[in-house]
């Protein structure tokens, strides 16, 4: 079995989250600059600069999630789960089945609206104790966890 992509719905979730972040930043920046510079000659240029920055940020907020989705893939085989992610720095994480101590499936309100969930695998490691695979469709996340846990009895350290 080759690598699989995660659910498309997660792109919308990430976009909305990123856009919300941009909106908060916009509010803060406008809220700081307008009262400070009100009536001054600098107001226009500064607002234009802030507007430009925010436009770039919004563009990234729309584009990066799609890119991240394209680069995020996973594979379940007899050894365990392999997760690949990252746009510039590309990571491949191999979590052996026997090393999984416990697992979480979590869903925020936004994720619930789009029917996606995050699967988290906890190992007894020290630097990378939590390995998360976001953007799985609900039922797929549950099925994946079942496959992971059923076929390998958790070994200790």
């Amino acid at each position, binding site marked *: 079995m080759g690598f699989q992509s995660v659910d498309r719905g997660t792109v919308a979730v990430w976009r909305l989250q990123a856009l919300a972040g941009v909106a908060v930043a916009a509010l803060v920046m406008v809220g700081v600059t307008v009262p400070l510079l009100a009536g001054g000659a600098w107001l226009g240029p500064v607002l234009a600069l802030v507007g430009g920055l925010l436009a770039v940020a919004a563009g990234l907020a729309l584009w990066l999630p799609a890119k991240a989705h394209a680069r995020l893939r996973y594979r379940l085989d007899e050894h365990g789960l392999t997760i690949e992610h990252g746009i*510039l720095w590309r990571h491949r994480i191999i979590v052996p089945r026997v090393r999984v101590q416990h697992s979480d499936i979590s869903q925020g309100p936004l994720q619930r609206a789009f029917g996606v969930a995050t699967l988290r695998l906890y190992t007894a*490691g020290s630097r990378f104790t939590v390995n998360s695979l976001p953007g799985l469709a609900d039922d797929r996340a549950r099925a994946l966890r079942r496959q992971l846990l059923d076929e390998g009895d958790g070994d200790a350290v």
Partner: protein
Amino acid sequence: MRYEDGHPIPEQRLHPLSWVFYLSGGLGAALPALAALALGAEWGGGLWALLPLILIGPLAGLWHQWVYRYDTGPDGLVIREGLIFRNLRQIDYRRIENLDTRRNPLHRLLGVADVKVETSSGGGAEATLRVLSLAQAARLSEAVFARRRALEADAGAEAGDAPPAAETEVLLRLPPGELIRMGLIDNRNLFWLGAVLGSLIQVLGVDLLERLVGPALRDAGLRYVSELGLMLKVLLVVGTVIGVLLVGKALSVLSALVRYHGYVLEQAGGDLRARHGLFTRHAVTLRLARVQVVHQLATPLHRLFGRVALQVDLAGGAGDTDRGDGARPLAPICPADRAPALIDRALPGLARREPQWRPLSARTRYRLTRLWLWCWALLSLPPALWWWGWPGLAVLPAGLPVALLHGHLYARYTRWALTPDLLLFHRGWLWRRLAVVPRNRIQTVRLTRSPFDRRYRMTALEVDTAGGGLTKRRVRLGYLDRDVAARLARALV
């Protein structure tokens, strides 16, 4: 041990002088007030405000001593804390990894010890018994380990293998000669001394210096330091540096002699035990089952003396309050030729025979040389151009020899090997580090390709174990060929 409705109620109490060891806590609380006094605050009402602060420590200590109970139950160590908010804790014998005792001079004067109960769950000591008399500590340790052995023997009998005989064998002793070498090798004090000296000079200023050395200078017919010749100034600077070096080295020799006085590492069954310390006696138990990675470090000074330092990463030690990184010295210093035998002891039953060393990617040399040249250019060009104008470009080739040398030597000395049981990674040429990771301790494997890695078709492979966690000691094999890294990752999990 008595039972109430089937619940175990611990009955053993702490040493009657336990409260003494809470004094320092009270003093700590009173410290701000004392500082205010020293700075000239009015006595008046201040004294009365101070008194309860000083009493807090011993009173809390008395309360603690009065309500604290411990006992050895049928399956685990039982500890009861608190009277109003009761907390009954049971620590399973099989989960107890260490009973570390710590004794500073006050403990030794009163014949008592702090006993720390450590388990594999991480986050530091599970419980600290403060304080027990030596006899109590010995009884507790005896009882806990006897029961643990019994429980393990039961489990072992079911599995069909006998428990290992618990005979003690000394693996390493460090006579004073070795400790002196260790102090000479250690450079940490130097850094601090330099910092302290630098700030002292900042504070005292040149004025005072002139006042101190002024008479001598005047005798020599000079009025100010600034009138000294260049030669003398250089001599002064060199003299100061040598002085700092000598004092720093003397201090580190002294601290090594004090801290590691009478260092003995011995093996008892499945445990390694280290005892050391002149004033504060340390007794540390390393359970072999918990050893995750063995690190060997050889700095240039280590190699000058033909020595190495060995450390182990223990599972669950990441939250250790003493050191913060879960690393324990296996041998703070040992002759280089004895290191392999010690590593074998720390990782028993693992075949280490003749590792087949494999080099990094063939492009490493080129990549590192380029990287160093770029760094050199970015750091040195702007100031050079600023000072000398266009002739400053001449600094650029000056960095080439170092960059070439570093690239060549790093690629030559950095190598890895995979044996049936172990992953070995040897890194660096000036500071040489060797990490020995048992393959069955590897939790996850992570391959990373940065934009630069992609350009050179390389991959970095990092393995994660239950020990360590500190950046300096992570086991990360950079500069591997892409396909080599992929194959290695498949082999490891």
